[in-house]
């Protein structure tokens, strides 16, 4: 099926046309953003209902409204839903996806079909997470699912399987979206849009994308270990085998703490848009703000163990992590003061978005300050796992992130739909939710300080907690009422609201220079950016338009706009991945079907459009001159580095702790592996030669070297299969000991990467035979594959040293 791109000549809103089929196969970042928005709204309601049920249960001491079992499912799913299915995707999928291309002056994201794929994978992952409700086996071990409670011995049901699988699948979607959007920010910026001129929202979400790329791999590795423990009887988190459940905590919080910033950074970005706009001043201290954003991202990666002060890591580790955690307060403080300085001396316009921003300032500060409290290990020992922490992170994530996101919703709603939300209902919405929020969560500080642990389905009546809990429940219902007002506002204004026009708020950034809702192609002419706040400066005459108009930009006339064509394959791939996962868990029979569907659709999507012009992916960045595909693959490689780092760290941690069976010293066959290592290194040489040949358009030699590379890859894999088989015969299985499980997992995952590389190369070879490379500029596909291949090679360089050559080195 060959669908040529639609040549767009009329200026019609992106919302019009296409019907249901159009929405299912859409690759327009704005439509995908809207899909994300609707999905997260549904999950917001689900998560909110879960919260209400919990608050009803806790309204009175020793209540019996919910059983212990149901309550545990509620708080687990409330946390998981709000974090993974609401706050993060609304920032990543809705705001970033919709706004980033508009703010950087791009027509779409870097990889539009990958964008659709991310959404569908996220949606299916979310459905898997919630599928447990159907049989009352919803996940029930808390949103951070501490091992070893999640091991099959202590959680025998399907509950944890749904959780693991749902998170793995939706995590894949998040990483894809982050790769895509990071490549967009790096490479799709309009000419003149330097990093120091990007709107701060783009800066914030850019840091967020980086954090997603480096934070999700440890979670993925942790979940894979958990799955292997549950399905294959390994002992990654089991003390009886010499391992420790704390490994899970480290891997999880390596993800979990950056995740907090993944949720909060879009809120920072939104604040940095709303505050200047409604103060009618440029953002105070722009470079400082940009840098503090980046610094927060960087530091957030070095503080994970402050979630573990109570586990007994020792005073040195406690102090180190206390210090790094406190450091984060400095850039965060800078941001808060800069927002206030932006307001100072401005013309403050008290519209709903700004009200939310003001509430954010106070409430987020409170959340941050209570965070400084439990950055102190002694205080943390009193507060952790109590309701004080519940209060703290709700002040950060609800009073902070969610308030800013709501402000952002009011702010960009006219751009998304073309109509303003009602201001009066907006104020009602604001005041009810502010009061409800503080009524719900402020008492929780006190509850925690008075000794109420979190995650208890009941509490005794004699601890002085009764009235506080009742207050909290009342607040929760007030918030629910407020959400109802929001829904009414959306419903009322969708058809009858005031028409917004392109620039309802006196905006500063490029998205306000185009119609609301924007046409499918966003910008008729790609803008030329001459300063920060480009649109605002030109509006107020700070920048004189250049006398000689940028001729090349104007020359790119409307009829040359190529929009990404719709594609059915994203949804098919997502379905295939989900089928594989579900099959793995419940019905092994459908695993093969799922895999076939995934691989087939992926290959079909790669070659969907024979015309080079149809691939907007093939574009060269207008400001950088780099090929977007290469930018994308490098971002992905960055993410993969963390994946293998987690595996290698686990191997090194567990090295020498085996209680039984063969170990590295006794079993490894170095001569054989030296040979296969050499083979793999030489395959990198042939790969680079193949790529070089394709670049010279010498397809004959390219194909030859490609074949040699494939053969060398297969030899390496053969060596690995032989090695595994011989170890198996010598009595080393996956379950034998810690060496067995870490070795097979790490080396096996590396082997799987080689195997995928071989498949990719084989597909490219096939395409080459079919003449696909005759079209200009397609050799970058080989280069992208080559980068991946070399990366797998350097991972092996490390594994070879760590596993094989350091086999006999004792632990310090």
């Amino acid at each position: 099926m060959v669908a040529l791109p639609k040549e767009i000549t009329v200026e019609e809103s992106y919302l019009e046309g296409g019907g249901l089929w159009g929405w299912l196969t859409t690759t327009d970042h704005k439509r995908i953003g809207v899909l994300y928005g609707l999905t997260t709204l549904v999950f917001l309601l689900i998560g909110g209902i879960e919260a209400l049920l919990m608050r009803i249960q806790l309204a009175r001491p020793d209540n019996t409204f919910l059983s212990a079992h149901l309550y545990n499912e509620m708080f687990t799913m409330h946390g998981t839903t709000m974090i993974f299915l609401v706050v993060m995707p609304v920032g990543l999928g809705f705001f970033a996806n919709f706004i980033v291309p508009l703010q950087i002056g791009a027509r779409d994201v870097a990889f539009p079909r990958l964008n659709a794929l991310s959404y569908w994978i996220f949606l299916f992952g979310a459905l898997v997470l919630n599928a447990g409700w159907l049989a009352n086996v919803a996940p029930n071990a808390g949103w951070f699912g501490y091992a070893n409670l999640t091991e099959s011995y202590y959680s025998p049901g399907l509950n944890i399987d749904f959780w693991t699988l749902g998170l793995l699948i939706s995590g894949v979607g998040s990483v894809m979206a982050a790769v895509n959007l990071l490549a967009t920010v790096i490479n799709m910026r309009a000419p003149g849009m330097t990093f120091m001129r990007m709107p701060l929202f783009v800066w914030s979400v850019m840091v967020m994308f980086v954090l997603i790329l480096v934070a999700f791999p440890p979670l993925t590795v942790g979940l894979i270990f958990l799955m292997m423990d549950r399905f294959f009887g390994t002992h990654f988190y089991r003390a009886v085998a010499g391992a420790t459940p704390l490994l899970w905590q480290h891997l999880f919080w390596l993800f979990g703490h950056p995740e907090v910033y993944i949720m909060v950074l879009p809120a920072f970005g939104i604040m940095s848009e709303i505050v200047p706009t409604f103060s009618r001043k440029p953002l105070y201290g722009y470079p400082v703000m940009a840098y503090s954003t980046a610094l927060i991202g960087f530091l957030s990666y070095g503080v994970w163990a402050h979630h573990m002060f109570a586990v007994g890591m020792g005073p040195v580790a406690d102090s180190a992590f206390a210090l790094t955690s406190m450091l984060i307060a400095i850039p965060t403080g800078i941001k808060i003061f800069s927002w206030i300085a932006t307001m100072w001396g401005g013309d403050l316009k008290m519209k709903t978005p700004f009200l939310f921003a003001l509430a954010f300032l106070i409430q987020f500060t409170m959340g941050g300050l209570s965070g400084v409290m439990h950055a102190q290990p002694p205080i943390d020992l009193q507060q952790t796992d109590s309701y004080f922490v519940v209060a703290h992170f709700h002040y950060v994530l609800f009073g902070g992130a969610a308030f800013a996101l709501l402000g952002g919703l009011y702010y960009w709603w006219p751009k998304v739909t073309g109509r303003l939300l009602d201001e009066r209902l907006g104020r009602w919405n604001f005041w009810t939710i502010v009061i409800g929020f503080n009524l719900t969560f402020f008492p929780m500080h006190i509850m925690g300080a008075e000794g109420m642990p979190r995650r208890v389905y009941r509490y005794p009546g004699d601890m002085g907690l009764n009235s506080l809990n009742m207050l909290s429940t009342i607040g929760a219902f007030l918030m629910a009422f407020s959400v109802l007002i929001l829904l009414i506002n959306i419903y009322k204004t969708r058809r009858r609201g005031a028409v917004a026009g392109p620039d309802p708020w006196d905006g500063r950034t490029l998205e306000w220079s185009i119609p609301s809702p924007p046409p499918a192609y966003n910008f008729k002419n790609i803008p030329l950016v001459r300063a920060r706040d480009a649109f605002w400066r030109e509006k107020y005459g700070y920048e004189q338009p250049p006398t000689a108009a940028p001729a090349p930009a104007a020359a790119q006339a409307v009829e040359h706009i190529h929009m990404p064509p719709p594609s059915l394959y994203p949804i098919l791939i997502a379905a295939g991945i989900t089928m594989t996962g579900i099959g793995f868990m419940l019905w092994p029979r459908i695993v093969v079907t799922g895999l076939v569907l995934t691989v087939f659709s992926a290959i079909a999507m790669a070659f969907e459009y024979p015309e080079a012009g149809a691939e907007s992916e093939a574009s060269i960045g207008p400001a950088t001159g780099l090929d977007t595909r290469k930018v994308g693959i490098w971002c992905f490689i960055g993410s993969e580095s963390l994946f293998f780092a987690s595996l290698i760290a686990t191997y090194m941690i567990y090295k020498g702790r085996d209680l039984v069976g063969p170990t590295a010293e006794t079993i490894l066959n170095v001569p054989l592996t030296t040979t296969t290592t050499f083979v793999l290194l030489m395959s990198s040489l042939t790969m680079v030669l193949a790529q070089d040949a394709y670049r010279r358009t010498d397809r004959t030699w390219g194909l030859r070297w490609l074949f040699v590379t494939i053969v060398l890859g297969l030899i390496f894999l053969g060596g690995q299969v032989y090695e595994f088989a011989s170890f198996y015969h010598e009595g080393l299985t996956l379950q034998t000991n810690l060496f067995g499980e870490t070795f097979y997992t790490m080396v096996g995952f590396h082997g799987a990467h080689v195997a995928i590389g071989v498949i990719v190369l084989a597909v490219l070879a096939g395409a080459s035979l079919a003449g696909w490379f005759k079209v200009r500029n397609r050799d970058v596909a080989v280069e992208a594959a080559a980068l991946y291949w070399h990366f797998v090679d350097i991972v092996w360089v490390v594994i070879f040293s760590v596993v094989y050559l350091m086999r006999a080195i004792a632990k310090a």
Partner: protein
Amino acid sequence: MSSASIRAAIHTLLAGVFAALLSGCDPRRFPGSTFAPRSDMAHWVEAVYFEVIGWDGLILILICVLVFLCLTRFSTRASEDQPKPPPPHPEYLGLEVAWTVGPALILLFIAVPSLRIVFRTQQSAPPTNALIINVTAHQWWWQFDYPSMGIHTANEVHIPVDRPVRFLLNSTDVIHSFWIPAMGGKRDVVPGHVNELTFTPQVTGEYIGECAEFCGLSHANMRFRVFVQSRVAFDDWRANQAGGPRLPTGGPARAGEQVYVTSACTTCHAIAGYSSGYIGPNLTHFASRTTFAGSTLRNTPQNLAAWLENPQALKPGAQMPALGLRGTELNDLVAYLESLK
């Protein structure tokens, strides 16, 4: 409207904090309070706590005042429709330096005492006269063993006042967390790793302890009690606990003894001289405890009978099965257990 409301909200919040801090120190109203320190460790923690609260309060007030001033001085409402040039926007480097260095200094002030306490509360060698108590966490109850005294008990721990006590924490199943709010801070109980918690209780009394780490279905029902006793009272208790079980005197108790010996209870529970199960709590001096079942039930005959009839109804997921005892058998067993002072 907005500025007045915000001011009111701020007042309410501050008043709330203040009231909470004051009333929170009353352990009669709040037996689980973290603001009623009763040990050396709890005092150290509280000192850091108050220092941070003080700084936090100052910063919060500063920010609220700044936001409030912005609102009162710079709000414009009437001029919405008349476009006018944007206000000037100067930037001052000194200001930026100030709000970078200021918080950094405050953090330094906080960090120094805080880290001193970190090292003071986690010393690798215990004080020489420390009473060592082994704590074993189970789903969902606490086992306490005094290795130097040969005492085994559950869910209620007795310690002498003014003598350092060192809890060695171990778990047989999942991760739990050992928390006595009045004694200053919790410590996780991690399977495969012995954690330590050392402090010197300073005031006699009965204190609440809880499991703070989610540990499965009945996490909420995993509480315990700490009795800090004078030296004399502790010695009395110790003398009683170290001895064997009381022999049943009355008729029902004697009959209950037979019920116990012939029942499935013996596979899981220990009564010195009768059975040596170790899955469930040691019952040798069961009646000397004020509570049972993860310290969630008062130790009365009625409660005990209800518990024996259907443990899962009172503590979901409890490992103890319903033994199907009815009528006299049940009453006899209750009488026997309640005789084990």
